[in-house]
């Protein structure tokens, strides 16, 4: 009881975490999974089979230490000469000669030729200690690499002495306070062939170069790391022109930032289908479809739109070469070449079977880190299955999507749906983790195939539920309404014939209306003519009536005149003369009036 209490108090007083000092490797990803690098001032064992990258990893540890962390180093090579080493790592951009000249690095090549050496009696490895000590003192080294110290076992016979001396060596390295890296060959059933792991117990890293189905994958695992919580998984790593890089792929979570920004798909009509604004930035878009339905064309449109906005795009193509894609897209009116020239668009084309899955993932990571794109296209994701099995591909894609999401990169994935499979399904079962899923399918009708597109899902937006006919024209992708007929949707020629039919009907209707219009006009004209004729008739009648009246007056006048003449002739007198002149004047006036009325 009392003991328990005592224990408790002592536990409380001791500091909970004391961070182990670390010597950062400067290698992308490795520092992350080791919590900051190799243990400082202690030896680290790197083991692996031949060609696993032991020498390179240890050399990079030294070079980066010398350049980035101002920690000079000593490389004691038991396998390769300084000249060979210099040449080998020059391809990775390391100039050892320069570092040696600046006294930031010392390379000591130790050659042991068993045929030259005989052993008689006792000895120790003080010579090695002295050489190492001189090199450390000469450069002020903080880091030491012994590559591969196991060669001593081949050169010297007395194992007892050797083991005792190695123990002393590691002790000595610790005492000197250098961060040492010791490399060793992988042994049968053990980490190292000669059991070096029993001397180096602080940090053991295993490199693996595995060939599965003729495809090689490099993997790294931290077997042991005293005093540090480390990732226990196998991490894929890459060796390329920039050296080593390790992918801390499983450390990704779901804490990525989300964006409210919407970006265009490059096809106005498709944007309309996606709630009017397009995709969310940083979302994952999947395009599924059977062969030849225009998945790459859709991707190209998206890329073109992004480049037009001045954003960088990275296009991973597993089936077509960049040149082929650029040429093919030109046929639908997209000039991707201009974006490549402006370095807004980069293609990365490899066969899926060329590397293992992890390698693909590693390469994608690396290029994304380097190029920092806003949009990444993977065309098609399904082909990655060829590089591994279905489960691996699935895990890898989830990692990849998480990685891209974390960086706020919009991912555009295409996936080929096989003929016999369920259509709304992906080979790699990623449909549940994508945000937007567009589907392009064939519609076979009336003896031809046509393309149709619909939005299967699109998270966080009110998207259209309509099927659209999808046309590839010289000016790009066109989306058209589809006709829904008794046999289903109508596309292509069926749609065209339906359109023609409707056009004909409309034409007929129009002609009918025009005909009626003409008839009405004719009727009106006829009526108007008749009205005019009637009016004329009436006028004539009126005129006739007028002229009759005038004759009557004239006749009366004539009669009265005749009467006057008669009267004059009967009784001559002065008065009728006057009336005669008056009467003729009156008659003239009347005639004149009549003429003006007519």
């Amino acid at each position: 009881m009392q003991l328990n209490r005592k224990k408790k108090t002592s536990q409380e007083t001791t500091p909970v975490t004391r961070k182990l000092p670390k010597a950062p490797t400067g290698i992308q990803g490795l520092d992350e999974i080791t919590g900051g690098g190799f243990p400082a001032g202690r030896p680290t064992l790197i083991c692996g089979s031949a060609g696993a990258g032991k020498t390179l990893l240890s050399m990079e540890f030294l070079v980066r230490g010398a350049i980035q962390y101002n920690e000079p180093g000593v490389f004691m090579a038991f396998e390769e000469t300084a000249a060979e080493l210099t040449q080998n790592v020059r391809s990775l951009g390391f100039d050892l000669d320069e570092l040696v000249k600046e006294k930031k690095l010392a390379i000591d090549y130790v050659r042991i030729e068993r045929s030259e050496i005989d052993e008689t009696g006792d000895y120790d490895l003080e010579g090695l200690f002295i050489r190492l000590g001189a090199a450390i003192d000469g450069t002020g080294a903080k880091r030491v690499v012994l590559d591969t110290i196991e060669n001593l076992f081949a050169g010297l016979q007395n194992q007892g002495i050797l083991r005792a001396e190695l123990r002393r060596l590691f002790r000595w390295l610790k005492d000197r306070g250098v961060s040492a890296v010791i490399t060793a060959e992988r042994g049968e059933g053990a980490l190292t062939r000669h059991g070096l792991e029993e001397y180096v117990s602080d940090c053991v890293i295993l490199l693996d170069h595995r060939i599965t189905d003729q495809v090689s994958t490099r993997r790294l695992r931290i077997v042991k790391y005293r005093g540090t919580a480390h990732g226990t998984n196998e991490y894929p790593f890459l060796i390329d022109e920039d050296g080593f890089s390790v992918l801390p792929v499983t450390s990704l979570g779901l804490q990525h930032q989300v964006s409210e920004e919407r970006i265009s798909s490059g096809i106005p009509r498709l944007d309309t289908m996606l709630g009017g604004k397009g995709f969310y930035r940083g979302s994952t878009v999947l395009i599924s479809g059977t062969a030849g339905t225009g998945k790459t064309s859709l991707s190209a449109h998206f890329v073109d739109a992004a480049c037009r906005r001045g954003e960088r795009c990275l296009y991973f193509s597993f089936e077509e070469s960049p040149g082929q894609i650029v040429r093919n897209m030109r046929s639908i009116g997209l000039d991707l070449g201009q974006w490549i020239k402006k370095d807004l668009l980069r293609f990365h084309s490899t066969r899926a079977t060329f590397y293992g899955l992890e390698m693909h993932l590693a390469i994608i990571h690396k290029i994304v880190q380097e190029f920092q794109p806003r949009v990444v296209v993977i065309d098609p994701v399904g082909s990655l299955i060829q590089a591994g099995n279905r489960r691996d591909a699935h895990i890898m894609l989830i990692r990849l999507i998480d990685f891209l999401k974390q960086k706020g990169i919009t991912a555009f994935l295409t996936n080929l749906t096989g003929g016999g499979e369920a259509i709304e399904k992906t080979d790699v079962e990623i449909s549940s983790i994508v945000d937007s899923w567009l589907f392009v399918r064939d519609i076979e009708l009336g003896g031809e195939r046509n393309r149709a597109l619909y939005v299967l899902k699109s998270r966080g937006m009110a998207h259209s539920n309509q099927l659209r006919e999808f046309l590839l024209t010289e000016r790009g992708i066109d989306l058209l309404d589809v006709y829904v007929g008794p046999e289903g949707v109508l596309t292509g020629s069926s749609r065209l014939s339906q359109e023609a039919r409707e056009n004909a009907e409309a034409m007929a209707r129009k002609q009918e209306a025009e005909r009626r219009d003409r008839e009405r006009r004719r009727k009106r004209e006829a009526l108007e003519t008749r009205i005019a004729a009637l009016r004329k008739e009436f006028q004539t009648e009126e005129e006739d009536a007028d002229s009759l009246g005038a004759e009557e007056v004239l006749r009366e006048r004539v009669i009265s005149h005749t009467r006057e003449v008669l009267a004059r002739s009967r009784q001559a007198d002065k008065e009728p003369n006057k009336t005669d002149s008056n009467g003729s004047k009156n008659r003239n006036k009347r005639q004149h009036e009549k003429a003006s009325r007519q």
Partner: protein
Amino acid sequence: MKKPADSDQQPMSLKEIGEQGGEPGEVWELRLYVAGQTPRSVAAFANLKKICEEHLPGRYNIEVVDLIKHPQLAAGDQILAIPTLVRKLPQPLRKIVGDLRDTERALVGLQLRPASPEK
């Protein structure tokens, strides 16, 4: 590991040895690498001298290199183990590591005696 008691009392200089072997013909150039005056290096030197006196009287030069004083010399002859005896001449180069306690093996190593079939 017992060291020979007599070795301590022989303050032998290089020059002395060199002067002793002055015969024309095949002169053996031997170099012994040591690290300080450890009992093992002293024993090695004594053993070496004994062999030379017996088998190469007057036809040998021994150079003793103390790596503690001249650490940079270790790389030249690829020295790891101490003590190491290097036969520079006659060619080819031979190396014998150890305190030369086993005279038979030392002789074989120096090619003063062919390796016996049973060994």
